[in-house]
Each structure stands twice: as C-alpha cells, then as structure tokens.
C-alpha cells in the first residue's frame, strides 16, 4: 500500500466521520423538532434561511462561530496530547475579563498597532495562566485534568464575580468600562457592506487564520510530534528520553492560551466591554467542535460553523423550539462522532494489518 493510498484512506475515514456527525446532528434536530410538534422540514428550512439565507444571518453565524474556532482548536491541541481540557470555559472567562479590564485602562489615544498585540498577548497569557495549575498537577503528579479543569471553571466564575465587585467593574454596573477606541476590532461590515448589522468582526478571519496556522505547523514542530507520541505510549517515550511531563504541561498551557483568544471576538469585536456570562458556552461547544472536526482544518472550520449556525438558528427558531434543545443536540453530535470514530478506526486498522501480513507472506 503506497503512501498516497494510506493518506487517502485516513482522509476518507475522517471525512466519513464528519459526514456522520453532520447527519446525526440533522437527524437529532429533526427528531427533537418533531417532538415539539413542528414540521422538521419547515424548521430545517427556516433554520437555513435564518442563518445562511441572508448576509446578516451569515454574518451572525460567523460571529457565533468565531470563539468556537478558537475553543475548538484549544480542545484539539490538548486532545492530541491525550488530555481533556474541559476548562476552556473558565480560561476564556478569565481572559475576557483581563482583556476587557486592560482594554479599558489603556491610554485613551493608543493606536491599534500597539493595543492589539498587547491585548492578544494578555488574552493568551491569562488563558494560559488559568490552565497552568491543572497543567502542573497533571504533568508532575498525574492528577487527572478533567477534575482539575472543571474545578478551575467553577473557580473562574467566582473569581470573575469577585473581581468585578472589587473594582474592575464600572461604578454602578456589573461590567468593565468600555475599552479605548484603539482596542476595538472593527466589524467585518467595514470591508463587506452586505454584512452590516451583524456582529462579526475581524476576529473571525484572525480565528480562521489561527486554526490554519496551528494545524499546519504543529506536526512540523518537535513539540507537536512528541505530544502525540506521548499520548499514545508515555512509557515508551520516557524510555527514549522524551520529556513526557513537559509535553503534557506545554499542551495544556498552549490550549489555555488558545482558549483565551476566544475572548477577542466578543469583548473587542462586539461589546467593547466584559460582563459576566459574555461568551459562556463556547468552551463546552468547543469540545464538540474538536470532536467533530477531527483535527482537520476543514473539519474544524465546518464544525465551528455548524455550531455557530445552530446557535444563531436557536435564536431564530426560539418561538417554535426552545434554545436548550441545541445543547442536547451538541451532546448527540459528540456521541455520534465518538461512536463512528471507534468503528471506523477499527476498520482502518484491520485493513492495514492485512496489508502488512500479505506483504510479509510474499517475502
């Protein structure tokens, strides 16, 4: 079996899994809609029209998808190393607060060229900071990161609350003051007038670019390759002197940093300030995006757009079908993809095994 055929086999397997995930999402949607006494066909059509049917709708989908590009990437990076970063919610909340607070306290006439790099760095830094403790606990003590990151999530909720109460918030409100002009990320409608009215900002193309760059570069770095190996067999890696603990630490910290970037679209690109609860849910959905996207650029972009579409669609359909249904839909997609993954992987492995055996027999 040539290299080319192996590559296409893996591509087919992933594409199949993505299609299965999408199909499962649609099927679940139809079932849930039907349970509410609405027509699946009518609701599907309305969903489509309300999202991709108008430029405004499309813009909104992109807006909702922007943080998901980042959070899906964050979860993916951790997942490659065999780690479940369930703490994206907390990391992005802390980062959002930091960005909102700093953005408000920058010099009034600071130029974007100075403000943006600073704020991006703060976003990444605070996200990374919030994942640091779980990262250390996991790499040095083996404490499972699912528990620690979830605890950090809860802690983030409290911390943000306290911070806002203690002075970061504008007097008399529960949000940070507006960020200075130079910190804003302009809306995409400045470049594409048809998108006027929608909240999508330049954070969206930045997000897409980040996904592409990271997914392409990662396997070309030493860290990137070793992280995957460490996930597969830490004992063998340790035996060959690969720094297992360090790779795990790096993975969670990078994941936290990427999660922090998810604050850009909502804080700098949309509201211009931070209030508690802004951007919530992106962390959880990020898990679904990462699972559905299977580490492929196209997969993750499509997955993020899908969930962005569902989020926007939830608003559109709210009169007929309540928004909570979307959460259930996410869960179904995650499970469907996971189930499909197992089955597909076994098929592929079996095929590869028989090829190897045939080659051996020929010798």
């Amino acid at each position, binding site marked *: 079996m040539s290299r080319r055929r192996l590559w296409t086999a893996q591509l087919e397997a992933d594409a199949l899994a993505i299609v299965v995930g999408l199909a499962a999402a649609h099927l679940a949607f139809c079932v849930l809609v039907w349970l509410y006494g609405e027509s699946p066909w009518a609701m599907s059509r309305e969903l489509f029209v309300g999202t991709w049917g108008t430029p405004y709708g499309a813009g909104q989908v992109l807006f909702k998808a922007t943080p998901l590009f980042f959070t899906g990437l964050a979860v993916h990076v951790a997942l490659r190393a065999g780690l*479940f970063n369930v703490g994206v919610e907390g990391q992005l909340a802390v980062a959002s607060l930091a960005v909102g607070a700093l953005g408000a306290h920058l010099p009034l006439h600071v130029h974007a060229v100075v403000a943006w790099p600073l704020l991006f760095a703060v976003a990444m830094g605070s996200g990374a900071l919030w994942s640091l403790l779980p990262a250390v*606990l996991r790499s040095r003590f083996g404490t499972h990161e699912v528990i620690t990151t979830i*605890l950090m999530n809860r802690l983030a909720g409290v911390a943000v609350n306290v911070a806002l109460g203690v002075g970061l918030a504008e007097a008399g409100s529960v949000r940070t003051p507006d960020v200075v002009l130079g910190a804003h990320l302009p809306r995409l409608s400045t470049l594409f007038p048809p998108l006027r009215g929608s909240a999508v900002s330049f954070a969206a193309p930045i997000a897409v670019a980040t996904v592409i760059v990271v997914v392409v570069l990662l396997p070309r770095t030493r860290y990137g390759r070793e992280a995957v190996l460490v996930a597969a067999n830490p004992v063998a890696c340790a035996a060959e002197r690969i720094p297992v603990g360090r790779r795990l630490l790096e993975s969670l910290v990078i994941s936290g940093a990427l999660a922090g970037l998810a604050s850009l679209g909502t804080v700098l690109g949309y509201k211009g300030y931070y209030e508690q609860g802004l951007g919530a849910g992106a962390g959880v959905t990020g898990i679904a995006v990462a699972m559905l996207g299977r580490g492929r650029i196209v997969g993750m972009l499509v997955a993020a757009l899908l969930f962005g579409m569902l989020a926007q669609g939830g608003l559109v359909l709210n009169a007929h079908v309540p928004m909570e*249904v979307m959460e259930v839909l996410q869960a179904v997609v995650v*499970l469907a993809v996971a189930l499909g993954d197992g089955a597909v992987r076994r098929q592929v492995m079996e095929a590869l095994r028989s090829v190897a055996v045939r080659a051996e027999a020929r010798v």
Partner: protein
Amino acid sequence: MLAQTLRASVPYVLAAQGGVWSERSGVVNVALEGTMLVGGLVSVAVALTTGSLAAGIAAAALSGALVGLVHVCAVELGRVDGIVSGLAINLAAAGGTRVLLRAWYGSSSNSPSLAGGSSASTGLALLGRALVDPMTLVMLVVVIATPFVLQRTRLGLRVRGCGESPEVLRAAGVSVSRTRAIAVAVGCALAALGGAALALEQRQFQSGMSGGRGFIALAAVVLAGWRPGRATLACAAFAILDAVQVVLQGQARALEGLLQALPYLATLVALVVFVRRQTSGGAPAALGRAERTS
C-alpha cells in the same frame, strides 16, 4: 452546624459511592454531575405527579440506572472513551433537564414546589428533620452496604476484578460487559439518588442545581483512592465546607466570594496534598484503559 453538614453530605456521599461503584469496575464516570440533575428532575416530577415521595425516589434511581446503561453501552460496545461519553451525558443532561422543565412546567429554571415537609430551619429541629429524612436513611444504607458488597460478595469481587484486569476475567469465563453494566447502572442510580436528595430537600428542582457537586464527588473518590469508606470521609469534609457557607451566608460580604470559592479551592488543595504518587494513587489498574483488540 451538625445538621447542616448532615443535610449537605447526603448528595455528595451518594454520588461518590456511585462513582466508586462505576470506577472500581474500570469505567470512568465523569457523568455523575449530569446524572444528579436527571435524578433530581425525575424525583420531583414523579413526586408531583403521583403525590408519593417514595415513587419519586424509586423513579430517580431507575432513571439513573438507565443513564448508566447508556454510558456503559457507549463505552463497552461502542468503544467510546469513557470521558467523552461522560461529558456528552453531562451536556445532554444539562440541556435535557432544561428542555423538560420548560416542556412540563413552562419555566426553564424551576419546577413547582412539592407540598409538605417540615419548615424547621435551625438547631435541633433541623437536625431532627435531617435524621428523619428518608434520603439520609438511604445514604446510611448505601454507605454500609457498598464496602460490604464490594469486598464480600461474588458480584463485588467480579467488579473489582473487572477494574483491575478485564482480560483475566474474560479468560475465567466471566462476562466483563455484564459485570460493568451492573456496576455502572448501580453507580449512576446512586448518583441519581444523590440528585434526588438534593431536589427533595429543596422541595423543587432548579436547573443546574447540582452546582458542581458531581465533580467534587468524583474528586472525593480520587482523593480516597477509590475506597468507599474514605470517600465518605472526604465527602463529609466537603459537606462541612458547604455547611460553613450556609451558616456564614450573608454575614460578611467581603468573605462571600471566598466562601463560594472554598469548596473548589479546598478540592484543588486536597488533590495536591493528598496525591499518592505510587501506583497512580490507587486507581483500579484498568480504569479508562482502552483494550487492544489484537
């Protein structure tokens, strides 16, 4: 304070024992949180409909067992990673309970309240109420029964075996899938009962009312080295923290944030302090391990 602690401990302990059951058989269970929500909603819904608390409790246990079966099927048959399945269940439960709340009662945050129950709220009266509560009794039974069953019965031995080395069990002719199914079903039923305890205590179901207890219960299991007796102790410690929160509530605004953070901080600190570095802290050897099919 004692009364508050007792009240608070019931959901933790039940969920933790549920976690022990499931994880000792080798199936990772991060879905305790979601299962608690399901149990809470079902218990209140059934109690409201039938007017019988006992029916509500029984239904909650049953619903928990069903959730557990879904989880174990995904893991054993579908070969899904236990964590992924658990997270999906949590997601589905969070959304699903809100969907059902709205569908059945028109609100996506509260259910109607259950009638009855004493209104004692302090001191000895509260202690009395806590002791007499049926869920407290259930908790005591579970706390005593779990270690006994795990150590001294055939089922318990097989569950422990599955958690250490499923290949050996299989070679001995024992059905690993069936044993795990029972263990996880029992475990999730217990977690659901924990949620029921929580909801019935408040006489209503509120969306998201488990508030992270399921994860803390799991942390308690880890801290306790997966031993039921110690897990109960760990839960008691967390319950004390909860009780402190309740008692000090509204007394010092500045401290409020710290109080809220206390359970989580305490858990994190405990995880750092009590970590046992040899043999991965006493975890069942086969926990979460995907078996090679070759």
